[in-house]
């Protein structure tokens, strides 16, 4: 079996419609009110898109997000499985003196990744049933494959940072938003299932945080590089303002559960800042794209 599988080789049947991050970024449309200025944390004057039952399109918004959870679980399963398979095993503990963890990982880390696969497979099954309950078909929405792309690094430590801390951290935010939605809407299945999956995601983030610390204990440069990679992935996952503490974002930042998962307050503040930056950059890009389009139209119309 091939090691280090590229994202375009993921096995999918004809029901799935993959879309890359580049394609998503090429979409010039936005729901954001670009004239409202910079986003603010919490309720501000900007248009509100936080997923709550008060939104007129609440049930469709929840269905779309649930499908995103479903494909995210598949990719998380594939990512954790790949980390078990792509690297050799070295020693039992990360701190073994002779452990070279550049291209090999401790057996106990693989065991954690195997446990994560088990959890993610269960989450996929739960997501399929929830989607059915909500009236969504498998593959009804495009599948953004950026999640698996974050799991393709050749350095296992970068995978821990990108997948377990950034991706699974995003999962904490998504499940918290969905659980609250289910609670407010009175949907007993959604609330219950999201709560249980959330508990698993907190564990996955904690595993990533613990292993990152252990494996890079004597290598501060590598740890720094991993945390930088995590920050890049966090920003990608916040693209267009999908997740931030502004009410303009459908998904909020779950500070309490992130804290339980081992994120420090400073780390959560930093993710909050990066997310707001992503939202703001998207607004600026849309303003620029519209100005460019108006210029092009004006040139064409005047023959200039």
């Amino acid at each position, binding site marked *: 079996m091939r090691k280090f599988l590229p994202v375009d080789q993921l096995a999918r049947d004809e029901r799935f*419609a993959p*879309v890359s991050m580049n394609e998503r970024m090429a979409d010039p*449309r936005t729901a954001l009110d670009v004239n409202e200025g910079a986003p603010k944390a919490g309720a501000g004057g900007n248009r509100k898109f936080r997923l709550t039952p008060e939104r007129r399109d609440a049930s*469709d918004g929840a269905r779309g997000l649930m499908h995103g959870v479903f494909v995210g679980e598949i990719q998380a399963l594939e990512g954790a499985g790949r980390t078990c398979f792509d690297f050799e095993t070295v020693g039992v503990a990360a701190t073994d003196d002779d452990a070279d963890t550049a291209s090999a990982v401790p057996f106990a880390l693989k065991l954690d990744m195997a446990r994560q696969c088990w959890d993610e497979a269960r989450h996929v099954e739960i997501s399929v049933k929830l989607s059915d309950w909500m*009236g969504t078909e498998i593959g*009804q929405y495009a599948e953004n494959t950026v999640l698996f792309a974050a799991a393709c690094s050749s350095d296992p430590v970068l995978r821990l940072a990108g997948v377990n801390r950034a991706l699974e951290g995003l999962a904490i935010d998504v499940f918290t938003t969905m659980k609250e939605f289910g609670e407010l*809407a009175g949907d*007993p299945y959604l609330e219950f299932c999201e709560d249980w999956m959330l508990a698993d995601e907190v564990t996955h983030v904690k595993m990533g945080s613990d292993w990152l610390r252990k494996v890079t204990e004597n290598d501060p440069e590598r740890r720094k590089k991993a945390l930088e990679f995590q920050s890049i992935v966090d920003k990608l996952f916040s693209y267009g303002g999908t997740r931030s503490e502004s009410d303009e974002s459908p998904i909020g930042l779950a500070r309490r559960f992130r804290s339980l998962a081992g994120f420090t307050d400073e780390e959560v503040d930093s993710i909050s800042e990066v997310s707001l930056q992503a939202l703001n950059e998207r607004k600026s890009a849309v303003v620029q794209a519209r100005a460019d389009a108006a210029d092009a139209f004006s040139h064409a119309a005047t023959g200039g």
Partner: protein
Amino acid sequence: MAVTVTPETFSYVSFDAGLIHRIADEIAGAIGLGDTPITIEVDETTPLARTVISIDDGVHDGIYIRADSGAFEDTRKPRQQSETATATSLGRVLLRASDRLTGGFGEAPPDDQLSLPQISAWETYSIGRLERLGITVNRQRWLYNFRNRHGFTDAADGAFEQLWQSDALTWGSLCAISDSARAVLESS
């Protein structure tokens, strides 16, 4: 009958104004709006899926529909048009306009003053009729939408079924069905 679609060509999305025109024309003919002028304006700068409708608003003759591009979009292929989504989005607002024009819905508040349960009840009534017109719909999607506004109860499911199967409701009877489900929710 005149159906007008703007813009005629799209730059943000790959939509076909001719397809929108044809679908509107077919549905309008099937529900008795064949002689009513219809103006459809698509806002292609937003991926949201809202549709707003007005009737004889003083600016447009007949029915005016303003739709966000997401209302006609294929959720599997961003920026591409879906014939089913176009038919469902246009069908439900055209049926609402038809209800207002053909009587029995005179007391219904303007669209922007409808409550969320009223909107979902009216949508259920409309989508059920669209299904009988042969348009592909996902019943479970609309049941979930209705449950979100009327509760996850047997009473809500019964009310949904009644609305879905109906063909000749009035505003009063539609509200009575919706209210009965809400009453069970509020008493629980």
